[in-house]
């Protein structure tokens, strides 16, 4: 069973629907026992980092998710859920969860694309991920596959946590983390078949990790 971490700031229903479609048992919850008993946790997010941290903090859920991560519960952060795993976000000048060293920065509209035209912010639409290291999440996914991005701020973690990058004005980090704690800037739940495959891969990892315990 996967738990979708409920902190009222996310795209949690979209993730839920994608998992239902895949036949992956799941529940949207913020009950610490249920989270603890889940094989893995999806940490969703859409919207603003400041709002997300406020929701987490006021419900006392920031410590809950951090505790689960320290216990090595498999976690997949998505979009804002990916960004606030870092120390800090420039969005709303937000102190974030400090699970992975780094910060989240605003795209600079003076950066240019391959045609030398200034990039538009937000980065909105389909773009590719270039893997810098092997990652179980991308097993069986065509390297040319595009994923759906929609964000104005991008993660900039310490180099050792960069798993994949995407080009938009600069090469920014679109996948970060370590085995069992992954964070993706794009929305797998809205990225067609490649995105669904990534969610399946995450579930497969969680099942194996739970069996190994």
């Amino acid at each position, binding site marked *: 069973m996967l738990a979708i971490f409920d902190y009222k700031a996310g795209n949690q229903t*979209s993730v839920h629907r994608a998992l239902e479609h895949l036949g992956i048992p799941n529940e949207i919850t913020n009950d610490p026992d249920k989270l603890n008993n889940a094989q893995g946790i999806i940490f969703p997010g859409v*919207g*603003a980092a400041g*709002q997300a941290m406020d929701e987490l903090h006021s419900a006392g859920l920031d410590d809950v998710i951090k505790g689960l991560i320290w216990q090595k519960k498999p976690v997949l952060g998505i979009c804002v859920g990916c960004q606030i795993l870092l120390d800090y976000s420039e969005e709303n000048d937000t102190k974030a969860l400090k699970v992975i060293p780094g910060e989240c920065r605003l795209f600079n509209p003076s950066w240019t694309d391959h045609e030398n035209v200034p990039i*538009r912010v937000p980065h909105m*639409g389909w773009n*590719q991920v270039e893997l810098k290291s092997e990652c179980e999440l991308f097993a069986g996914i065509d390297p040319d596959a595009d994923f759906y991005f929609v*964000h104005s701020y991008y993660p900039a973690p310490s180099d050792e946590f960069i798993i994949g990058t995407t080009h938009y004005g600069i090469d920014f980090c679109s996948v970060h983390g370590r085995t069992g704690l992954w964070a993706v800037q794009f929305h797998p739940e809205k990225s067609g*078949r490649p995105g669904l495959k990534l969610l399946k891969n995450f579930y497969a990892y969680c099942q194996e990790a739970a069996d190994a315990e």
Partner: protein
Amino acid sequence: MLSKRVIPCLDVRNGRLTKGIKFEGNVDIGDPVETARKYYEEGADEIVFYDITASHEARGIFLDVVEKVASQIFIPFSVGGGINTIDDMRDVLVAGAEKVSVNSGAVKNPDIISEGAARFGSQCIVLGMDVKRVEKSETIPSGFEIVIHGGRKYMGMDAIEWAKTGEALGAGEICLNSIDADGTKEGYDLELTRLVAESVTIPVIASGGAGTPQHMVDAVTKGRATAALIASIVHYGEYTITDLKKTMAEAGVQTRSVW
């Protein structure tokens, strides 16, 4: 590299897919959920739904369509039509939409853009603009005026100024519809598209007038749009979305190729 998006637009009235020309003479052309799924299978990059139902009672039917779509297609979609309050926004986002498009509601109350952006994030607030060509004047220096109520009510607002205002208030994207071109299949209004695209730094979706794949290429090259909205061109089976993307790719436009 970021792909240019191909976005079919579905007008929904009383739970059914409908299409008109220049916002009039709407006819029933099918089931929106089935149609959305077909476009998803064909490689649509995103889908837009507009609730063109006037009555309050039919709102529930529309939200039901949104929920059904959300459980069957796994690409982003935005929802517009009748969005006047933060609660309206929340309803469609909870029903499964990725983005919400405000049009008349923002013209009447621009603060809804900033409030929506603060609550849900700029990236999910789309400013929908319906625009008509008029004579250039002091009030409308660009010669493009904002209209509401399906193109019937002129607002005395310059489209370029409104686009800039919308961006400043926190809209994350503009969906720019030319009412003169809507449903004509004679091509997008490229002058309008480029004027708006060069006045803002947020993405601009060209809308209204697509009749051939070349029109879509023109929208994202000459018009500087980041996406092309289409309706008639695919609703009547003239082209599939796969055909359109293939032609765009052959013309050198970056499109999403794996789905």
